[in-house]
């Protein structure tokens, strides 16, 4: 499998480290229900069969964190962008 890094081009998947769901956001620690919010942020994950936005790190490349939209059934990659990029 190859992943097209927006900075480095197409590279073997071995160059990347996988983290997981890119849709969860670190909660505000000041909210009243922070304990529950963090519990959900750290542990609760959807496991969709289909399109999934996930974080990959180009560890053996430019060290960019990327958001990869991948179909979990086919591994087909729809989009790849640097995290936070619009």
């Amino acid at each position, binding site marked *: 499998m190859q992943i097209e890094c927006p900075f480095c081009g197409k590279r073997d998947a071995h160059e990347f480290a996988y983290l997981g769901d890119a849709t969860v956001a670190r*909660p505000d620690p000041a909210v009243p229900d922070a304990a529950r919010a963090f519990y959900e942020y750290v542990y609760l994950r959807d496991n969709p069969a289909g399109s999934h936005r996930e974080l990959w790190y180009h560890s053996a490349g430019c060290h960019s964190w990327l958001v990869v939209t991948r179909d979990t059934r086919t591994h087909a990659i729809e989009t790849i962008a640097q995290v936070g990029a619009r």
Partner: protein
Amino acid sequence: MTPLPQSRRLASGGLIDRSRTLSFQFDGKPMTGHPGDTLASALIANGTILAGRSFKYHRPRGILTAGSEEPNALVELRSGARREPNTKATTVELFDGLVARSQNRWPSLGFDVMSVNSLLSPIFVAGFYYKTFMWPAAFWEKLYEPLIRRAAGLGRASREPDPDSYEKAFAFCDVLVIGGGPTGLMAALSAARAGAHVILCDEDFSFGGRLLSEQFVIDGQSGADWKAAAVFELEQNPAVTLMRRTTVFGGYDQSTYGALERVGDHLPVPLPHMPRQRLWKIVAKRAVLAAGAVERQIVFGGNDRPGVMMASALRSYVNRFAAAPAQRLGLFTNNDDGWKTVADCIRAGIKVEAVIDPRPAIPEAFRQLAIQAGARLFEGGLVQDAHGTARGLQSIDVMTSTGRTESVAVDGLAVSGGWNPAVALTCHLGARPVWRDDISAFVAGDTPPGLVVAGAATGAFDLRSCLADGVRLGAEAAQAAGFTAVAPTVPAASEETLGLMPLWKVTGARTKAFVDFQNDVTAKDIVIAEREGFRSVEHLKRYTTLGMATDQGKTANVNGLAIMAALTGRSIPETGTTTFRPPYTPVAIGAFAGHHRGKHFRPTRLTPSHAWAAEQGAQFVEAGQWLRAQWFPKPGETDWLTSVNREVIAVRGAVGVCDVSTLGKIDIQGADAGTLLDRVYINGFSALPVGKVRYGAMLREDGIVMDDGTTARLAQDRYVMSTTTANAAKVMQHLEFCHQVLWPELDVQMVSVTEQWAQFSIAGPRARDTIQKLIDPMADVSNMALPYMGVTTITVCGGIPGRLFRISFSGELAYELAVPARYGDGVIRAIMSAGAEYGIVAYGTEALGVMRIEKGHPAGNELNGTATARDLGLGKLMSQKKDFIGRVMAERSGLTNPDRPSLAGFVPVNRADRLRAGAHFLGLGAHPSASNDQGYMTSVAFSPSLSHWVGLGLIKNGPNRHGERVRAYDPVRRGDIEVEICSPVFIDPEGGRLRV
């Protein structure tokens, strides 16, 4: 012993080179063959019928097929370190000096004591593992499994390191053609003529597929001649890569294919510098799967007897290898294709005794052929049982169309139950094959993007369709890859028909009828599975082990499915589908490992002082990828503890130096660098003054300690962080995550500088005296100018830029001197000269460890992935004024419970006792059980300063139990001693030595 003549070699014909003779041995018997033979064909030419014993029942087995689908003829190939079990004799290319042994027999193949298993067969029926050996579980490992394994028998691995090398390689092409039979050759020609870069792979050592084994005529030439011309044209084309002996074993994402090239397997020993096998990753814009089809059996009594063979395999041996598997043959076929066998036998002079065709009416031409062969014809007949011994077949029982049973004497039986398209590669990405009633076979369902199936693999079993498919799909593949295909011409070939009448299993067999030969699964096993409710294909498979052997049931699965369908009154597609996973045929682990073995498994990183340390005779230890000096033995020191004690005493008494360059170093810069550190560490760093160093611990978001180390502030907007050796890359990734994903608004940049700096710890009461001699004049490193936890920029040895950190892991007055890595070798030598007058020693990781344990510093053993900051005595560092990673989760009740195992020191009550890391703590007199477990000893060391062993450990409520005694229980090493809980800081608890 001189080899006997090849008694079953036909006088003429075949694609073998009779001008050369190859010698080989099978079970110690010398035999000969010719180039072009496989081991199987050479065995047949030598009249060998019996090739091995079966896995479970030790039944005698012969050669069933002529290809990679072979379930029976598995041998141990070669000897010594190269001995390889479970090698298919049908795919081993004969070479001079080949040595092979049959498997699963004791004491000899002909007389096998374990065939008594056959008499015990009631206990080996479906599900026997589940039923017979249920209880007690502990018996499995010690009793049942060894027993079953010995009885069942598998080949023996060599137990020696593999002396050969394996390679990995990548290839890219426009069109990958998988299979070099008529379809594949045609597809390759068609794509290559369009200008595409083509790779053509075939598992055989010769291209041609069935063209080698049948009497085909194409464009007026023999199939073999047409093939030779096609291969010649492809060889002349520089854009074509021909890969013989190469199995495309897997299809993966993004049009990537795995292939195994057997580079040196056909040689006795690979040539110098030649890998034995090469693992290819082939990325193809388009791929044509022309893998052909696998002939399937018909299940009847004794269908596994030596002498029973697939009809197509028999034709391979006769036509391609000029070897006669039988002299008086029976043919059992439910389709027209099987009848080719009769014509080929007439040509080769093999007597066909009988043809049994279950179809009620067969074409007139076949009746004439039977007459010509002098064979009895049983139209509408069935073979119910085959009888024979380990030496071969004797007779078959034929049920005639009128219901009589007749015995026919034969010494061989060719069987054709039709063909299963080889669609494995279309399933590797999850698609399932679909059933086609008209050919009674599964064909490809959805195909992976970029892959098309052609020829017999689609169920088009006649040569005309195969050639036409190849022409068309090869051209389309080239076009899809951006080329313009020339108008294709399809070579002329004679017409063929299939005329199949499905027949999976003959009823009324009186003897054992096998479905899966390799795993010894019988038709009766399927009946039992059905009766006991294991009717779904997945259950059937697991309960009976059908199709779970190394051949993945290539000759078995569809028959098994059909039998289950008949039992349950469902259609085959209703019953289920077979599916396939990579690899298509087994691939040696060595090929996947390639060069990544032994010391090449991962790179070895050397410290800047490595060459110097090696000169000193240092003992090295692997720390992750690093090789670090463990201790430096002096002449006369034979015991590691003696050396380590000397090093520790020297540091605590005078001065020592240790290379600490392996610690991770991250340079962090930017206006918000301090803010980032505040959020990453549990304690604060933004208020750290310039020129100061602070110890910090960081958590994972779940509240568990991730790493620790010191971070120095070099400037208002610049810090340098140190991490543990093991976590350097992980922390870097974590910081990048925090910056890029969590807080991109922070103005901060970071880079790993671990390898840019050589860093030496200089520790001991004479450390400052030593340092003073190294640094260039004008720099003031007095206690006043550079106090404990200070950092300054200096130059050493006449202008080498460096950083001097006043930090200590040993508990002594200590500095860490960092210089650019290229000066590391020179600087370690300079440090040793400077310290010589004070008696400086070099110390290694062992002495480093002893001193950190004496000082109670948690390290890798304590940062065990379950310990919190509080557990490690770092609770006071956790800031209440700011958020940081892990802060919220660290407050969970389970993590703040004072009963959690927490850091404490331990000394043996009897000071002569040795402590052992890993020992578990139990209350005095408590029964050793998990419920009484209070924690465990994480690190131990012999303290030369205290003259007894000291330990660190995590024990329930540790900090509040100093003075209490517990048991340190270590059943693995028979240790059970009393220890006293104490402060983890054994030396200089006030830290006075650090600040002098």
